[in-house]
């Protein structure tokens, strides 16, 4: 079973503290999303997990192999897509993949087999003979993912795997991640909230080098002030808003972009009370939506808080 154990990972660049005592544990079958603003420490954390950067203090165990002392064994079970998917633009796709496979210790026959298999999986068979520098961005990213997958590693670390891709390519990459998610540990970093909602079983929000929040997307959503709120689209928002504010179940009402949102006060069932009011007043309601909380709201809160502290 795949496992990652990060113990107080800390990293300084000169005097700047980029990652500050980040600890967590992940088991197989998990897609973990690192979420955070630019420069928050997501990439630095990934670089330490993959052994590209030495931690200033703390360490990580990759399948039990200490990244500081058993780097080679750890690398053997990892697949890594660095930020921006850097590749060797002079090499041909097939040769590059064969190089990675051989460096991973596969024998000659296995190399050929695994290059064929991964090329088929990522629809690269047609460009194997092409030079990497001539590929489009979407193909380039797929080559980057292909090299991470070539040895079918139990742990995949993908730094912004869908960044810069068009919507169709984005959904292809997401589908691929979903397909692989069953046994593996997959860590992705992203700024895209919908990606987290679709893909991740677990979310970590990192800001200013600190782990701010760790939970399921539902956990994170429930921290949103929108959790349990009710959104309405009605014909006379002013009247409705003032009546709604009168309910004991309602804390306050906001009107934004044609939508009324009633936030729960915590007393009684908000939806039932509002429904009863709608019926007794005979309002025309065009939309009625119970909010489950918004990730972006939590994210903005944490990131914003952090800016205020800085």
């Amino acid at each position, binding site marked *: 079973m795949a496992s990652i154990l990060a113990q107080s990972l800390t990293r300084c660049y000169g005097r700047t503290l980029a990652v500050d005592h980040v600890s967590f544990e992940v088991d197989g079958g998990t897609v973990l999303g690192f979420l955070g603003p630019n420069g928050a420490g997501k990439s630095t954390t990934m670089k330490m997990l993959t052994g590209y950067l030495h931690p200033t203090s703390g360490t990580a165990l990759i399948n039990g192999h200490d990244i500081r002392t058993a780097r080679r064994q750890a690398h053997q079970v990892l697949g890594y897509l660095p930020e921006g998917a850097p590749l060797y*633009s002079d090499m041909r796709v097939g040769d590059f993949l064969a190089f990675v496979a051989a460096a991973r210790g596969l024998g000659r026959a296995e190399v050929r087999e695994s290059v064929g298999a991964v090329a088929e999986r990522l629809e690269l068979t047609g460009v194997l003979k092409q030079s990497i520098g001539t590929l489009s961005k979407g193909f380039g990213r797929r080559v980057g993912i292909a090299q991470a997958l070539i040895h079918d590693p139990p742990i995949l670390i993908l730094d912004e795997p869908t960044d810069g891709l068009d919507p169709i390519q984005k959904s292809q990459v997401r589908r691929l991640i979903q397909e692989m998610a069953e046994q593996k540990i997959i860590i992705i970093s992203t700024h895209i909230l919908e990606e987290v909602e679709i893909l991740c079983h677990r979310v970590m929000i990192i800001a200013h080098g600190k782990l701010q929040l760790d939970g399921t997307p539902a956990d994170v959503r429930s921290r949103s002030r929108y959790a349990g709120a009710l959104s309405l689209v009605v014909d006379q928002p002013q009247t409705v808003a003032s009546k709604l504010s009168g309910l004991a179940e309602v804390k306050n009402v906001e009107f934004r972009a044609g939508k009324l949102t009633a936030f729960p006060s915590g007393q009684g069932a908000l939806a039932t009370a509002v429904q009863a009011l709608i019926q007794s007043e005979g309002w025309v309601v065009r939309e009625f939506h119970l909010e489950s909380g918004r990730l972006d709201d939590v994210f903005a809160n944490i990131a914003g808080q952090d800016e205020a502290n800085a």
Partner: protein
Amino acid sequence: MRKTNVMIKKEWMAYFYTPIAPLFLIIFLVLSSALTFYVGGFYEREIADLEPFFQFHPWIYLFLVPAIGMRLWSEEYRSGSAELLLTLPLSTWEVVLGKYLAALGLIGLGLLLSFPIWITVNVLGDPDNGVILGAYLGSLLMAGAFLAISAAISATTSNQVVAFIGSCAICFVFLMSGMPLVLDPVGQIFPQSWVDVISQMSFLVHYSAMARGILDLKSLVYFLGLIGVLLTGNWAMIELRKAS
């Protein structure tokens, strides 16, 4: 060792899929032959040896070897591919050695392809082929030392132009270190004992002996030791970059 071979193969692909290898080989062969015949007076001397061929190698290497060496690491760091390479299950030594040996192999291929001049001299006269073999070995060793300097410098910067100019400058200092050009300023600042040590480090002195067929153990140890020290420096630089 198998992993080092994987690395060498990858580097050779980069040389031969780009104009690097053909350009290097052509320029090396054209330049070394032209200098042999037009400046070295190969025919005019009427001596059946290859001294006119070998005497220009230091000067050709002075800029051709840094041109090969500058990209070894700078390019990896500039493009970000270093991150890919150094997270593969290869040890840093395997990567350092693989890159070095691949580049040295390219230079060695250039030397091998100069064989027509060896045939020519054997057709025209009766040269001492042992001397010629020793000179080839000396030339390869000196190129190896230049290359180790360039590789180590390349690991310190992600700018290839800086790597090239820095390597040329340091190679020049090593080449000339037995000459007044270097010894005089050193003598102004440092005691005589330093001057004596530095005068022993001249590539030119060690190489000219080998090019004339004097295979001195001291020169052999000097070049190999220097290459070892510089490659260790290269390795240390890569490790340091992970920590800084």
